[in-house]
């Protein structure tokens, strides 16, 4: 313990002796560690931001869409047959414990008119649960109510883009009466803006009306209760996959699909999308990290170089220490500690710099600044081990000096 402490003191003294040289060496390591930390941070931030935008599509969302039908060997695409009903949706909510919310959508395109302006947009006939399941709260006014749904009220919640197009940017639309397919609707709410999907689709270009109203007045229906999509919210992230399986079993039963027969619906989750996004950003992070580790390697070689110079400069000191009783391992430890001190200081500065850079970049790009704690600890430990690795050879060289020759060294 005493020896380690003294080795530490002696290392600090050696570094103070040539501050500029030690500083430059430390910068080498700092840049390496800083680059690694920044790259991890950027990778994680980009990944998280992508995942967030996917998750914003809905809360632990499981989507059921109509399936395909095989008729005389000809298969229609998905949606070729539509047997999904509001009863299916109610059964899902009732029978599957891990489903906390369910909503349905009847979808179409309609023209909406206000004054002398018109705009064609997607109409979604749905239930009040849409607000929660689709993570789509209103910014102004309120969502329509269960009562509106029951009575088929002519109320509409507009997406931000529709408001901008009809009323002008930033205008107040609440209470206004618009015509949808010729039918007057009162605007009760405006959805909070969601921006674009990662693939560039405007998520604010829609309007939402009660399902019953859509069926009866705007879109029509082949039979009452037919829906285009059922959206269920699982209780948690982990429940998404189990819930999707349970929904499949339940709907097969309800639709009386025999063993071996194809489903007339499809159950989809966002997990596949999230996993793809995650895999992509992970690969990106790994590539960035391995490129930035090269600078850490260069920093390590810098440490080795400086220590070799230091060993040569201090050959006489090593001889003196040996003459007064230092064993070879004492000399070895002294120089190793010096290397570790150098590289750890570099590592700490690098972590600080890396976190700062990550934060700045995140600020500009609008990503969450996420650097996992293990990456920070790992980077500091790794820089220390760079010190050990690159310090070992010079330290060995110092320890294996012949004391007589070292004492005579000029």
């Amino acid at each position: 313990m005493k020896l380690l402490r003294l080795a530490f003191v002696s290392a600090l003294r050696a570094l103070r002796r040539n501050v500029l040289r030690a500083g430059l060496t430390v910068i080498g390591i700092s840049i390496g560690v800083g680059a690694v930390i920044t790259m991890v941070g950027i990778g994680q931030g980009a990944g998280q931001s992508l995942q967030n935008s996917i998750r914003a599509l809905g809360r632990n969302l499981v989507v059921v869409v109509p399936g395909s039908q095989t008729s005389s060997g000809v298969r229609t695409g998905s949606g070729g047959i539509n047997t999904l009903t509001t009863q299916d949706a109610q059964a899902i909510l009732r029978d599957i414990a891990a489903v906390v919310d369910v909503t349905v959508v009847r979808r179409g395109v309609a023209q909406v008119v206000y004054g002398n302006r018109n705009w064609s947009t997607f109409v979604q006939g749905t239930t009040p649960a849409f607000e929660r399941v689709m993570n789509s709260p209103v910014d102004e006014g309120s969502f329509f109510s269960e009562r509106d749904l029951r009575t088929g009220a002519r109320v509409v919640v507009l997406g931000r883009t529709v408001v901008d197009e009809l009323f002008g940017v930033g205008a107040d639309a609440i209470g206004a009466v618009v015509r949808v397919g010729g039918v007057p609707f009162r605007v009760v709410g405006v959805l909070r803006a969601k921006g674009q999907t990662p693939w560039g689709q405007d998520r604010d270009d829609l309007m939402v009306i009660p399902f019953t109203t859509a069926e009866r007045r705007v879109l029509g229906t082949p039979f009452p209760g037919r829906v285009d999509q059922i959206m269920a919210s699982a209780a948690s992230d982990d429940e998404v996959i189990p819930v999707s399986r349970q929904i499949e079993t339940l709907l097969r039963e309800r639709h009386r699909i025999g063993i071996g027969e194809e489903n007339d619906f499809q159950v989809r989750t966002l997990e596949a999308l999230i996993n793809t996004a995650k895999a992509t950003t992970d690969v990106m992070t790994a590539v960035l990290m391995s490129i930035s580790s090269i600078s850490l390697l260069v920093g390590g070689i810098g440490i080795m170089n400086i220590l070799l110079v230091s060993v040569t400069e201090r050959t006489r000191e090593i001889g003196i220490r040996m003459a007064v009783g230092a064993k070879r391992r004492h000399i070895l430890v002294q120089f190793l500690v010096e290397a570790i001190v150098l590289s750890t200081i570099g590592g700490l500065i690098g972590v600080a710099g890396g976190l700062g850079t990550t934060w700045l970049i995140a600020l500009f790009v609008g990503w969450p600044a996420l650097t996992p704690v293990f990456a920070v600890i790992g980077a500091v430990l790794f820089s220390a081990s760079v010190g050990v690795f690159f310090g070992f050879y010079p330290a060995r060289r110092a320890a294996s000096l012949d004391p007589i020759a070292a004492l005579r060294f000029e």
Partner: protein
Amino acid sequence: MGATDAPPLIEVRDLRKVFSLGDVEVEALRGVSTDIALGEFVAIMGASGSGKSTFMNLLGCLDTPTSGTVRLAGNDLSELSSDERAELRNREIGFVFQSYNLIPRMSAQENVELPLTYADVSLAEQRDRARSALAAVGLADRMDHQPNQLSGGQQQRVAIARSLINEPSLLLADEPTGNLDSKTSHEIMQTFERLNRDHDVAVVLVTHEESIARTANRILRFRDGQIIGDEIP
């Protein structure tokens, strides 16, 4: 003179050392035998190349003989590992060099403490002992000075304090006055005499100067790797 019945501190028997310089073999020592007792003050004289430095290195456990034996305080040097020799140097031997060999940028006190850092001594005791050792050589007011802030004579006294800090039984001085003027040399030699008298330590001192050698109570003369004279001045 320390001639007693007890075994001598140093027992040298038929000591040989051969250096290989490429194809050429140089016999630095060719059969040296002598005893040095605890408390003796021995001066070693000889031209350069006479083997006296090799002899000192062997006494100081810095090197191992080609053949023959050196026994120091009962330990046969050729049987010791490099670590054991380091321990023996730490415990039994103090070195004083012509060029002082203090570590730059370390204060006088830290330099004196150095041997104790490799011994099993607490930091507090280490400090106390270094202070009193410096005081003993008259440098109580120079403890925090670095070597480059000290005169040659002062540096050599720091080196002497360092060599004595572990209370060794053997003090090896390799031309300790070689870089000093005659007045300072005289002071340093007085220090050695006093140490030899007051502490139970054998002093072996290499010198070129007859006047310095006469301070000792025994002179060994080396030529061509052999002792050619063992006299009392």
